[in-house]
């Protein structure tokens, strides 16, 4: 299943990529593929912006504005001001 097209913020900086393949390991959506020695984005629209690739890239070759694709969390953020958040894991007991 795929979500909206042309919206995600994922960026790969090829000059920094060493082809270690860690991003391929952590991505749950098969966004990346090996292109010879380095990695390339195979299907950008599959990205869910979870941020796993960016977090685990020790060469800072990936940039993405990570977050959770949850309407309740985004609406919560709009109402309360500030960042989207579903409140779970804090004192507030309503959840995603």
């Amino acid at each position, binding site marked *: *299943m*795929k*979500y*909206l*097209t042309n*919206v*995600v*913020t994922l960026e790969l900086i090829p000059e920094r990529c060493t082809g270690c393949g*860690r991003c*391929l*390991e*952590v*991505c*749950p*959506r*098969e966004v990346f593929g090996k292109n010879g020695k380095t990695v390339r984005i195979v299907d950008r629209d*599959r*990205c*869910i*912006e*979870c*941020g*796993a690739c960016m*977090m*685990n890239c*020790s060469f800072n070759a990936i940039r993405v*504005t*990570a*977050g*959770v*694709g*949850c*309407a*309740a*969390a*985004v*609406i919560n953020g*709009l109402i309360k001001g500030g960042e*989207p*958040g*579903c409140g*779970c*894991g*804090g004192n507030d*007991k*309503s*959840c*995603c």
Partner: protein
Amino acid sequence: MSECCENVELFDLRAVNTPAWVTGFVDTASGRVPVVTAGWSRPDRLGRLKCRLFNSFRMNYTVEAGIYALGSPNGRSPVLVTANYKLSFDLLRRELAGFDAWIVVLDTRGINVWCAAGKGTFGTEELIRRIGSTHLSGIVEHRRIILPQLGAPGVQAHRVKQETDFSISYGPVYARDLPAYLASGCKATARMRRAQFSFKDRLELTPMEIVPAAKGFLIFLAAVFVVFGLQPEGILFRSVVQSGLPVALLGLAALLTGTFLTPLLLPWIPFRSFALKGFLLGELATAPLIFMAGSEALDDIHLILFSLVFFPAASSYLALQFTGSTTFTSISGVKKELKIALPLYVAAAAASLILLILYKLQEWGML
């Protein structure tokens, strides 16, 4: 209480009623560690069911963070890391039946791995702290820990390596693939790396959509009672039944299309936007009912227009809430949907209100 001993002390204090899944204790370099069984007993099965039905239950369903022994692990046994949401812990130990392993439980405040990783509580800092507090380096001879792949958004593996010397292997997305993963020497196939979202997965998640919406539905019913019962001579039960009942049933239809049918039929409904999917299904479910009801029940053009606007919009809004339960939505996508949909919801709500007022004025002979 020193951090290193917290789970040991806890179980000593509660020795009289240790949970059924703790079968004993083993002495290690980290002190006494609870031994857990892979098998589930009745409370575990009941707990899973209650997690899917009651939000207040699921938000407080935890196990103590720390280290646990599954089977009879030794210094060469694998170390698996999970969250302290008890259902996550239970699914992990169940899939590890027959294996000897160490399970390190992080304090994620009772939240599952994926959500906690998104918040950073299943994260680098907590993992580094927990590796230290459990004296893991004294318990195992190797320096490898296995994390669930869906924990990766919260963890910087290279920083954990720098600070603790433990290398992270990201295991499969699903615990059920762990036996194959461990048997192959920690090699995950492409299929094991993919997050899925089957019909059954979606079905299991729908009660958590229906139950909160049902609370809103009670308020809706109260409003229907007042709006349709209200007559110049007071609230009349007869007029509630006549027009209020069909409207209440339409509300129920909208609730079920938004919270149940749309999530379930997700891949087969046209459009990528959840708001559009919910609107389409809401219209398909309520429009025929509205016209079938005919002039007997919905006898007013304002009321018919109200129904055609309000119920699909409600279904759309409810369907949009399911974005948070899926495995394929992104925050940029959700923001884009909301940017377009929220003003439309406000407009639909305003139009609905005006149409209802017009309906009442007409009914009272004031138009």
